[in-house]
C-alpha cells in the first residue's frame, strides 16, 4: 500500500513532466552540444598520438561521456524547489500529507528523472553513433549497467537532499550546490574516467561517493568487468545507506525548527 502510493506519485510526476516536453528537449540540446564539443576534443587528442589510455580510445571516451553526461543532465533538479520549500516555510503544508516528505520527494525525483533519461539516452546515442560509431558493449551486461545507474541516481538524490535540507540552518544553499556539481565534475569523473587521473587523485575519488554516481556506471558500460561490478554495487549501496541516514537525520532535526505563524 505504502509503495503503491509512492509509485502513483512518481507516475504523476512523470506525466506532469511530459506536459513540459519542450523544456526537457531543450535540456537535451545542451547535452547534444556538449557531446559534440567532446567528440572534437577526444578525436583531436586521439589523432595527436600523445594521448593514450589503455583500452580507452576516442570511441570509448565519447560513449563514456554519453553515460556520465546523461546521468548528470538527466537527474531531476529538485534542489532549488526543496531549498525554497524549506526557506519559505511551504514545507509545513507538505509534511501534513499522508506520506513521508523525503520519500515523497524521492518519488517525484524518479518520475521526473525517468523522462529526462529516456530522452537523453536517445539523443546521446544518436550523437555518439553518428560521431564515433556503436560502442563495444556486450548486451548481456545491460542489466548490470542499469542497476548501477539506478543506484547512482538514488545516491545523487540523497546527496542533493542533504544539501537542500541545510536550508534549515543557512540562508542560501546555492553555493553548496555549485561546489557539489564541481565535485561531481572532478571526483565524479564527469568528463574523463579515473584512468586519466593521477593515482593519488583516483584513489581519493574512489574513497568518496562522487565517482559512484558518474564514473562507475559509465566505466561498466565502456569496459565491463564482473568483479568491478560487484565492488561498485557494494560501494553504491553503502553510500546510499550513509547518505539516506544523514538525510532522514537532517530532516528530523530540521522540522523541529519550523515555526508556523498565521495562515
Amino acid at each position, binding site marked *: 500500500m505504502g509503495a503503491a502510493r509512492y509509485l502513483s506519485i512518481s507516475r504523476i510526476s512523470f506525466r506532469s513532466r511530459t506536459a513540459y516536453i*519542450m*523544456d526537457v528537449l*531543450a535540456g537535451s*540540446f*545542451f547535452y547534444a*552540444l*556538449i557531446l559534440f*564539443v567532446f567528440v*572534437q*576534443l577526444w578525436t*583531436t*587528442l586521439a589523432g*595527436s598520438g*600523445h*594521448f593514450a589510455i589503455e583500452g580507452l580510445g576516442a570511441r570509448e571516451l565519447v560513449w563514456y561521456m554519453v553515460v556520465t553526461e546523461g546521468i548528470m543532465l538527466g537527474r531531476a533538479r529538485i534542489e532549488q524547489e526543496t531549498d525554497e520549500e524549506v526557506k519559505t516555510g511551504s514545507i509545513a503544508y507538505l509534511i501534513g500529507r499522508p506520506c513521508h516528505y523525503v520519500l515523497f520527494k524521492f518519488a517525484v525525483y524518479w518520475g521526473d528523472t525517468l523522462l529526462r533519461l529516456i530522452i537523453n539516452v536517445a539523443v546521446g546515442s544518436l550523437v555518439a553513433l553518428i560521431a564515433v560509431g556503436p560502442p563495444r558493449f556486450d548486451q548481456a551486461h545491460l542489466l548490470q549497467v542499469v542497476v548501477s545507474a539506478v543506484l547512482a541516481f538514488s545516491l545523487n538524490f540523497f546527496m542533493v537532499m542533504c544539501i537542500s535540507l541545510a536550508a534549515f540552518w*543557512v*540562508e*542560501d544553499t*546555492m*553555493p*553548496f550546490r*555549485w*561546489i557539489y556539481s*564541481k*565535485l561531481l*565534475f*572532478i571526483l565524479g569523473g564527469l*568528463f*574523463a574516467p579515473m584512468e*586519466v*587521473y*593521477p593515482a593519488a587523485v583516483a584513489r581519493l575519488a574512489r574513497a568518496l561517493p562522487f565517482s559512484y554516481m558518474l564514473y562507475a556506471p559509465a566505466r561498466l558500460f565502456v569496459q565491463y568487468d564482473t568483479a568491478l561490478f560487484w565492488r561498485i554495487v557494494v560501494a553504491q549501496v553503502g553510500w546510499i545507506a550513509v547518505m539516506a541516514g544523514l538525510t532522514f537525520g537532517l530532516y528530523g532535526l530540521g522540522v523541529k525548527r519550523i515555526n508556523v505563524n498565521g495562515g
Partner: protein
Amino acid sequence: MARGKARAGRIGFGEAVSFVCAHFKFNLASAMEYRWSFASQIVLMAVNDFMLLFFWWLIFSRVPDIAGWTFRDVITMQSVVALAFGLNVSVFGNLHRIPQLIARGQLDYYLLLPKDPLLHMLVSRSDMSGFGDMAFGIAAFMMFTPVSWQRIILFLATGLAAATVYASFVTVAGSLAFLMGNAQTVGAQLAQAMVTFSGYPGSLFKGAVRALLYSAIPVGFFAYVPVELLRNFSWLLFAGLMAFAACSAIAARALFRAGLRRYESGNLMTVRA
C-alpha cells in the same frame, strides 16, 4: 508612442555610466543585507571556477598542446571569459531574463521612465556571484600567465570587449521574444551555446562550425580573439575586436528598439519596492 518614448530614452555616455554606477551601488547595498549569501556566493563561485581548471590540468599533464593551444592559452581564455561573464551578471543582472520580461509584458515600468529602457532594464538587477567569476578571472590570469602592465591593461581591455560582445549577443537572442512571444528556451540555449563553446580551445572547431563561431554565435570574438591578442598582440586584430564589440552593441540596441515597436503591454500588476 513607443518610438517617441525610445527617442526620449537616449542619454549620453557619461550620463549612462553614472546611471549604471548608481544602480549598481544600490543593488550592491541591497545584496549585502544578506551577508552570508553575499559572501558565500562570491567566494564559492571563485572556488567553483578554479575547480574547472582541474580537467585541463589533467589533459595537459598528458599532452603538450591541443591543436596548438597550450595550458596557458586555456587559462587565459577562461580568465577573459570569467571576467566578461562576471561583469555582465553582476552589473547587467537582468541580461538573461530579457525574454521573460518581454513575454510577461514587464517592460512597461521601464518604458514609462525617461531613461534608456534597455539599459535601465539590464541594470535593475545584480547577481553577486559575478564578483566570484571576476575574482577568479583576475586571479587566474595573474597566477598562471606572465604578468606585465601592458598585459594587464590588454587583459582588461579585451575583457571589456568580450563582455560587450556577450551582452550584445544575449540581448539580441532575448529580443527574439518580440517576434516569437516565448523565446526563453531559445534565448537560454543560445547563451548556453556561447558559454559552452567558450570553455574549449578554438582550434578544436573547423570548417562550418568555426565559421558559425565567428558569425552567428560570436564565440570567436568573445573568447578566442582575446587569447590570440594576449599571445601575439597585433594592432589590427585589436582594432578588429574593438570594432566588432562596438558594432554588436549598436546593433543589439537598435534591434531591441525595433523590437519595442512590436511589444505588447501586459495587464500584470507589478510593484517595485
